[in-house]
């Protein structure tokens, strides 16, 4: 199990930030991702593996008028 923005999701070996974005349907481009508080750069979303039990924050910024 992992928590993503307070929501509990299943965990599996090798699950990445990219997988989480897909599962949550997080399409917005201005995102900040953290695993247990640690910032994950955008170009590492599909290579950074999330450990079981992790707290993941996907911070959405704002856009538009």
């Amino acid at each position: 199990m992992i928590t993503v923005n307070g929501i509990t999701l299943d965990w599996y070996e090798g699950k990445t930030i990219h997988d989480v974005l897909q599962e949550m349907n997080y399409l917005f481009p201005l995102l900040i991702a953290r695993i247990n508080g640690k910032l994950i750069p955008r170009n590492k979303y599909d290579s950074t593996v999330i450990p079981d039990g992790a707290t993941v924050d996907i911070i959405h910024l704002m856009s538009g008028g």
Partner: protein
Amino acid sequence: MADRGMITIEIDGKSVSVEKDTTILEAARSIDIFIPALCYSELVEPYAACRLCIVEVNDGRKTKLVTSCNYPVRRPITVYTSSESVMRNRKIILEMMLSRWPNVQVIKDLAKNAGIEQPRYQHPSVDLNPNACILCGLCMRVCEQGIWDNIINFMNRGAERAVRMPYDSEQPHCVGCGACAEICPTGAITMVEDPNQPFDAEMIRKAGMRITEEMIKFDKEQCDMRGVGTAHLVEIMDAYDLLPVMNYRFGKHEDTPKISSDVFRKHFTKGKPDGCWLGCIMACAKAIENFELKTGPYKGEKVLVDGPEYETVGGSSNMGIFDPYFVAEYNFYCDTYGLDTISFSTMTAFIMECYEAGVLDIEKTEGLELHFGAKDAALELLHQIGRGEGFGLIAGKGIRYMKKYFVENFGADPNFVYDIGMEAKGMEYSEYVTKESLAQQGGYGIALKGAQHDEAWLIFMDMVNKQIPTFEDKAEALHYFPLWRTWFSLCGLCKLPWNDVEPADNAETDEPAKVPGHVQGYCEFFEGVTGKPQTMDSLIRMSEKVYNFQRVFNLKMGFGRREHDAIPYRSAGPVTVTEYESRQERYDTQLREEVGIDPSGMSSEEKVARMRKFRETQYEHLLNAVYKRRGWTNDGVPTVAKLTELGIDFPDVIELVKKHGG
């Protein structure tokens, strides 16, 4: 394990994996291998003019010299950046450059590195100017590709070749952005005229240039404002259940792809600067040219449609219409009649729901069948409003008027029309579903001018990120953001460059939602214009004075108390059983986890009622917290103490707020 689509190459014995079509120069830089490159910049397309960046490439069959700035990696190769043959050729080029431009610092430095102190010959067109133009072409490329202007270019040939404005004249179309001067490696371009005579033009240009660079480098991957403008939000709002559908009943629809930004991208004019004013680098205005109108006084004519922007498209889904041609047509006629697309679409969505619910019928609308999705009837209503005729005479007065009118003249159930008529302080809601974000309900309800999101857009922070869980957190956000956004209006600036592109290091800052790097830039703008140094706090302070003044003005005009910050229940939760049942799992969970009751066995009507009681109480708690944070009374009136602290305690102001318990 190699990533898919990556190619591994070797540069000077070090291996590096890069995406296909990365240039050798970029690949080398990514592993800190230095290759001299005078006509290269990541802001523009490569040009391969200086030839200094040559390297030797072996593709397994043969070895050749190539310019690394424009050589795309497509297969595993071995690269030598300082082989004997590279160094020999580079030295020849540098010696020639030094002989022609002996005093230009970048050239002197590179030549020295290559072991040349003095050229062995004199160039026939030697130029002793230390800021001589070395013909790299960076300036004209950034002007054309980055700024979308096309002011400067090379003129003449051979020794006479030089960068010039057309006919050697001053160009009225140059926007004075300074990008060409900033990118020039030799200082050959200087900005000479500052007609507005700001305190420090250079400071303004430097701050502006940072946004320009971010736009050129990141916009495509971030919001693509230059490609599709705010329309990029259509599919995003749908994905988060926030796109208003059928008078804000729902937040997504299976037909949204028909009006998504990709559809409009095909119609938008491309490759021209398209900002609200000349020189805006974000240029998100967007336009459709040669659009043939199907209705109204200009039927059959081909026109230019200014838009559509997100709100106009969201207004269409709100009317249940998923047709890009309709969107363009109603956009054009709203502009032509001087109507705002948000007000028109939100009130038409209200009319449509009334029509479906039987509050209205074809007689009452004088022949208009205004079901959800009825595009012809919606356009006819728009023309009637424009002409001041028929049902358009009633509709054109807005939702606040219609609610009363429908109750008094058509026997409508007041509870129903007041719940679903989406306006606050008499202004129609803009196009976001706020049901799952209490903070945003406040953002709309408390906004001084009426139901607009331009004071605060907090839905992601609140609903998705869960960054502001307590009433106090939400109140803090509803203090800071409205004041920050007010500041743009005070200065006559657009807000979009603040948060529709973000600096590369924004994620690493303490408060990324505020985009601190850009706040700093605005401090510099202000200082550059006025000569007065600023901080984030001092900008907020400017707004706080004005904002409180505006609230007092509202009070004077009869709109400035708690009762005026009330919102229609549709913006806070599901009004009807259909709405509840469409998101049953979500609401049942909330009843269990947030309200603390067990919904099993309850009828949907009961559940709607329990949910409503809970959410309405939450909203009142929110108002309490916001008023407290702002230094207002519990009735939403600025206190004498607050006004005194802000230095706006003028006698008539004090008298007015005292009368209202302030």
